[in-house]
C-alpha cells in the first residue's frame, strides 16, 4: 500500500468537495424564471428557427438516428448527444454539474423512479408552458402519472417503460410437468415441485440486490410505500401489511431453498440464465430482448406470461424501469429543449425507431396498438407475440404508485437490509422494519416531516 494511493484518494475527494463549494457559491438555477403561463406559438416558431445548440445526455445506444430526425425537421438546432453513463453514474455527474452551476445538459434521460429525486432539488423544468399537457392522451395512463407532479406539473416526457411479466423456460416446465403458474400460490407450489425434481434448478431468482423488482412486485400487490401530500412531507410505509405479505412469501421460499437469491446482472447470474438454473425470470417488458441477447444459447426455449396474481382471476402488474426525457431548469433554450424532448418521444417515426432499433418498450398508445409492433414473432420465444402480451400487461399497471424524493438512499438501504436478509435467508420481515427505520431517520435528517 502506498502513499501515492492515499494521495489520489484525497485528491479525488478534494475535487469532489471543490465542486460542491462552487455549488454553494452560485447554485441559483434560475428558479425565479418559472412561469406557468404558456409560451405563444409565435415564440416557439421563432425559437425553433434560431440557431441553437442543445446538449442531450442519454445512454440509449445509437440514439443519433432519432436525433437526426429532429435535426432534419429543425435544421437551425443542433443536438450534441453525450453518453454520461447509464443510470447511477449519470445521475452522479448530473448532480455534480447542477451543484457546480455549470456543465449540466439541456435535456437528460431520467428513469421514472428518479424524477422526484430531481424535482425536490428544483432541477427540472415544468413543461406545461410548452404545451406538454396536450400530449397526455398519447401516453398510457400510468406512464403519464409517473411524470406528473403534485400540482399537475409535467416534469418529463416518457420514453420507454417496463411493465412486468414472467419469462419462463417452456422446456423445463414441460420436462417436469409444470403449468405456467397463474397465482403466487401456484408459483410457490411449482417452485417446490421443480426443486424437488432437480436440485440444480430453481423456479426463479429473486435478486438480492434488485430493489427495482421488489418495488415492481410491491406495485403489483397494490402497496403505496411512499406518499407525500406536500413537498416537505413524506409518509413511509415500507413495512405495512402488503409489504410484510411480500416479505413472508419470498423469504419463505428463499429459506426453503426453492428460489435462489443471486445478485443479478453479474457474471454468476448471466451464466445461470444460460445454463438453465432459473426456470423463470420475473422481469419487465424490456426483458425479452435483453434476454435474447444475453442468453443466446437458450433460444427458442423461452415463453412469456403475465406475472402470477395474488388473487386468482386478477389482472395486475407493476413496473420495473423505463425512462423519460426531462429538461434541466438551467437550460438557456427552454423552448428548443422542451420541443426536442417532445419530438423525440411523440414523433411517429422517432418512437417507432425506439421500438424497432433500440427495442425500447413504448409508452405511447399508438405503438402499443400498432400491429407492426405487437405482431412481431421472435424466434427466441418460439414465435410467440411477446410484444402483444406486454402491451396488454401495460394496461394493467395501476396509477398511483409514487417514488420517494431520495431514491438513491432508499435503494442503498434496501440492499443492506431487505436484500441482505433474502441473501442470508434471514428474517425479511424484521429487515423491512429496519429499512423503514433507516428511511425515516434519513428523511428526518433531511428536514422532511415524516408521517
Amino acid at each position, binding site marked *: *500500500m*502506498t*502513499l501515492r*494511493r*492515499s*494521495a489520489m*484518494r*484525497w*485528491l479525488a*475527494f*478534494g*475535487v*469532489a*468537495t*471543490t465542486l*460542491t*463549494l462552487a455549488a*454553494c457559491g452560485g447554485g441559483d438555477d434560475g428558479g425565479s424564471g418559472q412561469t406557468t403561463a404558456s409560451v405563444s406559438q409565435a415564440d416557439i416558431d421563432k425559437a425553433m428557427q434560431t440557431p441553437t445548440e442543445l446538449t442531450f445526455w442519454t445512454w440509449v445506444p445509437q440514439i443519433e438516428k432519432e436525433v437526426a430526425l429532429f435535426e432534419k425537421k429543425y435544421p437551425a438546432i443542433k443536438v450534441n448527444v453525450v453518453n454520461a453513463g447509464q443510470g447511477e453514474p449519470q445521475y*452522479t455527474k448530473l*448532480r455534480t454539474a447542477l451543484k457546480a452551476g455549470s456543465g449540466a445538459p439541456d435535456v437528460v434521460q431520467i428513469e421514472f423512479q428518479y424524477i422526484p429525486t430531481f424535482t*425536490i*432539488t428544483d432541477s427540472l423544468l415544468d413543461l406545461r408552458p410548452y404545451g406538454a399537457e396536450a400530449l397526455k392522451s398519447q401516453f398510457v395512463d400510468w406512464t403519464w402519472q409517473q411524470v406528473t407532479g403534485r400540482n399537475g406539473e409535467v416534469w418529463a416526457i416518457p420514453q420507454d417503460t417496463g411493465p412486468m411479466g414472467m419469462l419462463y423456460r417452456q422446456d423445463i416446465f414441460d420436462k417436469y410437468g409444470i403449468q405456467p403458474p397463474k397465482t403466487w400460490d401456484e408459483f410457490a407450489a411449482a417452485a417446490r415441485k421443480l426443486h424437488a425434481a432437480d436440485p440444480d434448478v430453481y423456479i426463479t431468482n429473486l435478486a*438480492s*440486490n434488485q430493489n427495482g423488482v421488489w418495488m415492481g412486485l410491491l406495485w403489483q400487490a397494490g402497496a403505496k410505500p411512499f406518499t407525500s401530500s406536500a*413537498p*416537505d412531507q413524506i409518509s413511509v410505509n415500507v413495512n405495512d401489511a402488503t409489504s410484510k405479505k411480500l416479505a413472508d412469501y419470498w423469504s419463505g421460499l428463499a429459506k426453503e431453498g426453492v428460489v435462489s437469491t443471486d*445478485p443479478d446482472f*453479474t*457474471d*454468476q447470474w448471466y*451464466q*445461470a440464465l444460460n445454463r438453465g438454473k432459473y426456470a423463470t425470470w420475473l422481469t419487465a417488458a424490456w426483458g425479452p430482448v435483453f434476454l435474447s441477447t444475453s442468453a443466446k444459447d437458450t433460444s427458442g426455449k423461452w415463453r412469456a406470461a403475465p406475472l402470477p396474481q395474488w388473487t386468482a382471476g386478477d389482472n395486475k402488474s407493476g413496473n420495473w424501469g423505463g425512462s423519460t426525457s426531462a429538461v434541466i431548469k438551467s437550460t438557456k433554450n427552454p423552448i428548443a429543449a422542451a420541443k426536442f424532448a417532445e419530438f423525440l418521444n411523440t414523433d411517429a417515426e422517432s418512437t417507432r425507431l425506439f421500438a424497432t432499433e433500440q427495442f425500447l418498450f413504448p409508452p405511447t398508445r399508438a405503438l402499443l396498438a400498432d400491429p407492426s409492433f405487437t405482431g412481431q414473432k421472435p424466434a427466441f420465444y418460439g414465435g410467440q407475440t411477446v410484444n402483444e402480451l406486454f402491451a396488454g400487461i401495460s394496461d394493467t399497471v395501476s396509477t398511483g404508485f409514487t417514488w420517494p*424524493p*431520495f431514491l*438513491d*438512499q432508499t435503494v*442503498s438501504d434496501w*440492499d*443492506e437490509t431487505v*436484500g*441482505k436478509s433474502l*441473501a*442470508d435467508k434471514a428474517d425479511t420481515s424484521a429487515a423491512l422494519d429496519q429499512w423503514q427505520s433507516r428511511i425515516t431517520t*434519513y428523511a428526518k*435528517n*433531511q*428536514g*422532511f416531516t415524516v408521517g
Partner: protein
Amino acid sequence: MSTVTTNTIPRRARRAQARQAASGYLFVAPFLVVFLAMLVLPLLYAAYLSLFKEQLIGGTTFAGLDNYRRALTDDQLVEGVVRVGKFFLLQVPLMLGLALFFALALDSGVLRLARVFRLGIFVPYAVPSVVATLMWGYLYGPDFGPIAQLADKLGVTAPKFLSDDLMLGSLANVVTWEYTGYNMIILYAALRAIPSELYEAAAVDGAGAWRTAWSVKIPAIRPALMLALIFSVIGSFQLFNEPNLLQRLAPNVIANSYTPNLYAYSLAFTSQEVNYAAAVSFLLGLVIVVVSYAFLLIGNRRRAS
C-alpha cells in the same frame, strides 16, 4: 569561510546563494502549486464544509461540531473503522513478513536468478489495483470462477470467497498480492545500504547467515520497516478500490459502509450528505494519524530500550 575575505566576496556569495535558493524554489514550484491547489485547499474547504449541514428541505445551516458528534456515535462508521483495524492486524504482518522474507532471501546472495525473482515479486505492484481486483474477483467467483469450476470437477466444494465470513480474508489476499513486492523493494534497498563492516564484524564473532539476518540485518533496516509499516497503516485505513469493486460481485456482503472511506464516498454521492462525509473523512484522517503515531512511538521506544 575564511576570516580574511573582503567585503565583496560574502555579498557575491550571498547573491549566489539567493540565486540558488530561487532556482530551488523554482524546481519545487510545480509541486507546490499542485500541492496547494489539489491537497491543501480542498482539505481546508472540506474542513469548512464539515461545519455545515445541507438538507434537501431547509437548505444549508451552520452546524458547528454536530457532524463530528454524529460521526462518533455512528455505528456504521465505528463498525467500518473496527473492520479496517482487523484487516490491518490480519494483513499487514503477513505482507510485511513476506516482504522481509523475500528481501532477506534476495539479499543473501544464495539465490540463483535473483533478478528474475525480484522482478517477479515486484510485478504485481505494476498492475493497477482496479485491474488486480477485477482479476481476483473473477478467480473468486462462485459458479463462474476457475477455482469454483475446478473444485466442481474434483467433486469438492470451493470455499465461498465472497461470503460474509471470508470476504475480509479475500480482500487481504488481493492487497497482499499487490503490495508485497513494493514493500520488498523498500526493504531490499535498505539491506543493500548496510555497511559491509557490520557483516565482517558479525563473521568475526562467528555469526552464521541466520544469526546475521536476525541480529544485524533486521535491526539495521528498522527505519525502512517502520516506513513500510506507516504506509501500510495509511493504506489499510483508506481501503477503497478493492471493496468498491468486489461490491459488484457481492452486493449483500460489502455494504456501503464496509470501510470508512467507502462510507464517506457513499455519504457524499448516494446520500447527498456532503458535509457529513467531510466530517467522516476528517475523523478518518485523525484515526490514521493517531495509529501511525502510536506505531512510531512504540517503534522508537523499542529502539531506545
